[in-house]
């Protein structure tokens, strides 16, 4: 494709033992229960380094999903080393998490606050560990990385009546070009695709996958019906969106026009390039609450699926970033852009003022390449490192979900 051929830049990555490459080399400090959150946050703050990121899980009860997510996140290619912080009595399987990280070849350490002697002693020990880890990571050199080694996720937040006309289709163009260049691209939130299930199914690479896609949107509709709310916030309506299916049609255009190669669940890494739909709605009866309580919960799941960076489209104006993977903001609404330009990487709203969709798509593609080569996105430079992980329940994907896997 011309858009990719024209740039054809080599990205820069950090080589990992599983063959993947990272576009960042982050030290993750992970609390394993809310009771260890403050000590972990102090370690991150007092380290004074932008590449030390806080992640964690607040619950004291064990949960298969959250363990799996933490294992994926701590061995994400953008992560170079991990410090685990436990209170001591929580249910999280910290030893399994530590073994998984160690088996990936990454430096890993574990501090147990009850054994270390409380807040101050754990903080001081943690700062020393992080300092050594950063010194170790600083020795690593980057290697050339190609677009076909890249995984890009997309999410929308604060959608309005402009999202489906400007930012979302522009991301869709960028996705089409990335996929032609061999990258894997992931779109998600089946609850925000209610109404698009038949069109989506017709794009699946096999009829069996199409059936799985329709079934997963049915599951989402049923789940949200029981919860009593669709994925539709008051701000969506204030921005001109009226119905869930209207929001869905706009959100759907982020997927572009490539065939859908697979249906994955949180933590499943796409096996090769192509377009993937991420099913974020839990299996079974609603048990732990809303599927994703806010945008960052979706971003964390995209990252657990290996996303190196996230394309975040917004109409009303979101400011969030994320721990681990950079977030690029594509602003759909030109008035919002004028108000919040410092937070926005791309002004897709200029399409409403006469700019071409393809030009905005190319601008997004070019930003993907530069951010994947080390340049900071706006939210990254502003220090946004939001992170949410909650309880969920999933069954593994069925055999029809990844054809030719």
């Amino acid at each position, binding site marked *: 494709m011309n858009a990719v051929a024209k740039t054809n830049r080599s990205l820069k990555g950090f080589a990992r033992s599983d063959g993947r490459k990272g576009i960042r080399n982050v030290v993750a400090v992970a609390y394993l229960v809310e009771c260890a959150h403050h000590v972990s946050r102090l370690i991150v703050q007092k380290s004074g380094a932008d590449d030390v990121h806080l992640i964690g899980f607040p619950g004291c009860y064990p949960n298969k999903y959250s363990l799996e997510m933490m294992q994926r996140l701590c061995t994400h290619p953008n992560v170079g080393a991990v410090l685990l912080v436990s209170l001591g009595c929580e249910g999280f399987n910290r030893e399994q998490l530590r073994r998984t990280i160690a088996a990936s070849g990454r430096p890993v350490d574990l501090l147990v606050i009850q054994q270390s002697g409380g807040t101050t002693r754990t903080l001081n020990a943690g700062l020393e560990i992080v300092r050594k880890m950063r010194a170790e990571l600083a020795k690593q050199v980057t290697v050339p990385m190609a677009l076909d080694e890249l995984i890009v996720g997309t999410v929308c937040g604060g959608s*309005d*009546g*402009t999202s*489906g*006309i400007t930012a979302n289709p522009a991301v869709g163009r960028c996705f089409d070009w990335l996929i032609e260049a061999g990258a894997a691209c992931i779109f998600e939130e089946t609850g925000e695709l*209610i*109404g*698009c299930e038949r*069109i989506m199914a017709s794009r699946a690479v096999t009829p069996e996958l199409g059936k799985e896609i329709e079934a997963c949107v049915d599951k989402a*509709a049923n789940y*949200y*019906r029981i919860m*009593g*709310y*669709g994925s*539709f*916030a*008051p701000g*969506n*309506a204030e*921005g*001109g*969106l*009226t*119905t*869930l*299916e*209207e929001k869905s*049609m*706009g959100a759907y*255009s982020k997927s572009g026009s490539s065939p859908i190669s697979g249906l994955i669940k949180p933590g499943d890494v796409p096996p090769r390039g192509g377009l993937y739909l991420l099913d974020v709605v839990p299996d079974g009866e609603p048990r732990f609450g809303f599927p994703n309580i806010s945008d960052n919960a979706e971003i964390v799941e995209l990252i657990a699926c290996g996303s190196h960076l996230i394309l975040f489209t917004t*109409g009303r104006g979101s400011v969030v970033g994320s721990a681990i993977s950079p977030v690029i903001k594509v602003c759909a*609404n*030109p*008035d919002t852009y004028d108000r919040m330009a410092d937070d926005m990487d791309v002004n897709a709203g200029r399409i*409403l*003022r*006469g700019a071409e969709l393809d030009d905005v798509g190319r601008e997004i593609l070019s930003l993907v390449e530069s951010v994947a080569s080390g340049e900071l996105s706006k939210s990254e430079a502003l220090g946004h490192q939001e992170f949410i992980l909650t309880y969920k329940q999933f069954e593994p994907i069925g055999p029809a979900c990844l054809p030719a896997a």
Partner: protein
Amino acid sequence: METGKLPPLLLLHPDDNILVARRDIVAGEPVEIDGERFTMPVAIELGHKLARRALAADTRVLKYGAPIGSMKLAVARGEHVHLHNLRSDYLPSTSRDMDKKTDGH
């Protein structure tokens, strides 16, 4: 291109029976709908929808050429189409003052 020179209403798909405001439009502003001059009866904000033609109650509303819900009430050409007259065919939408309808958040 200057915003002022672009038509203020967008037709996203030829089958659509609504139009989308490309910018804020004030009441009384002259616009064109399908080549005919029309005076806006109400103000309409960027990203909001208006009826391309008169729509009867229960009419399927099409945007991007796809159904986005059904009319609760009949509207005249040019009227604002939103929560007060359009309903989802899937799940009800939420607004801040509707919160009481569920379990009291």
